């Protein structure tokens, strides 16, 4: 049985931990709100972009000289996986979920005899992937110093991806991130960026509305201008979704940590009181039996 002093110290330390987890939970809640607002503010741009792109793609479908960003370069041998994760830990299963999805994909691609390359965005994903697939990671981009995610960050990543594509380093590019659904549910998602993946039904639909437009310069040129931008937009959206998911995951992880600490404190306090009473009883017995012996 632990001594009273030991118990007292344990209780104090668990209480301190609980204070920290509680504070982290509240910070995460505040950050989550900000991340959600940012994600919502970015939505109109992405939606318009999608609309126009789908329309252009529809009206140009099958045309000669389509951009390789759209139709691919005709091969399917080398896959680049862009893995977006967080910079900090203590956010429950957030990073592991994404990494698990990536691992499954890598295993499947490798079984099919494809070459896989990984570009890590965020330190935590790199830490988890390097043990198994260290050789496949071509680069890691950390956003540690970034306080407020800006479009510039996404542009840097997009420029890198496009540069690699133009240098023929890969044929297919897939973006991995976690889609924010609610505080308790974040869904790891794989999104194919190159070649651009636009549903055909949507294409045909949008092409109809696009038919009325005049284009300046012509459609092919606009498309060529928009596709690289669209990659940056997709990366930006993934980063924002990820930021919201990370805070959501951290919030619920810290919530259960706080609850667990509370339970532990209750249990320890109970043991502490029992031990104290037992000790008092023991002392009483000693005094009484001493008096009886006289």
């Amino acid at each position: 049985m632990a001594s009273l002093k030991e118990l007292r110290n344990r209780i104090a330390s668990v209480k301190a931990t609980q204070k920290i987890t509680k504070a982290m939970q509240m910070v995460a809640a505040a950050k989550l709100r900000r991340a959600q607002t940012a994600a919502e503010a970015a939505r109109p741009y992405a939606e318009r972009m999608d609309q126009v792109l789908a329309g252009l793609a529809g009206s140009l479908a099958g045309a000669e000289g389509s951009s390789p960003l759209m139709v691919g370069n005709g091969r399917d041998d080398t896959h680049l996986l862009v893995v977006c994760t967080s910079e900090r830990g203590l956010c429950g299963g957030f990073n592991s979920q994404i990494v698990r999805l990536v691992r499954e994909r890598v295993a499947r691609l490798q079984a099919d005899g494809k070459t896989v390359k990984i570009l890590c965005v965020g330190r935590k994903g790199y830490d988890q992937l390097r043990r198994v697939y260290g050789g496949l990671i071509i680069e890691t981009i950390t956003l540690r110093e970034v306080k407020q995610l800006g479009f510039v960050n996404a542009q840097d990543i997009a420029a890198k991806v496009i540069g690699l594509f133009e240098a023929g380093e890969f044929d297919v590019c897939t973006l991995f991130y976690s889609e924010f659904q609610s505080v308790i549910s974040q869904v790891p998602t794989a999104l194919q960026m190159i070649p651009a993946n636009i549903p055909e039904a949507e294409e045909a639909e949008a092409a109809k509305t696009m038919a009325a437009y005049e284009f300046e310069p012509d459609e092919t040129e606009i498309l060529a201008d928009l596709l690289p931008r669209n990659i940056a937009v997709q990366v930006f959206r993934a980063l924002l979704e990820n930021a919201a998911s990370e805070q959501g995951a951290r919030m619920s992880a810290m919530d259960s940590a706080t609850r667990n600490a509370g339970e532990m404190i209750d249990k320890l306090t109970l043991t502490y009181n029992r031990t104290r009473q037992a000790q008092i009883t023991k002392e009483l017995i000693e005094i009484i039996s001493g008096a009886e012996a006289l």
Partner: protein
Amino acid sequence: MADTIRFELVSPERLLMSEDVAQVDVPGAEGDFGVLPMHAPTISTLRAGVMMVRGTDGKAREVFVRGGFAEVRPDLLTVLAEQAIPVEEIDEAVLAQEIQNAEEDLADAKDDLTREKAEHRLARMKEVVAALKAAGHG
């Protein structure tokens, strides 16, 4: 005929402007064009330049935009710009200072990466100056 057109200026980060205006002059890739209500549906890419927004009260505001495209419908003009700064927020003295800093960075650059970055920054800032000059400022 309606005498105003809905104008939305959207950057990747947020919706910057959303209001009814009388006229907007957009710096298109193939030349500037003015958008009035009932304009023919058009999609055009943008070059770096100054966009002039004339409100219903006849007052004009100017916004520097770079990269993106404009979508015109008879009742709606949407400008998707990668960067948009109101001209009155651009301080020419600060800009000149920034350009000087960038030039110094360029001169001091030790490796290709920093040089490339500085060059890029300088080019972007010179674009702003050129666009402002073209619009009749400074």
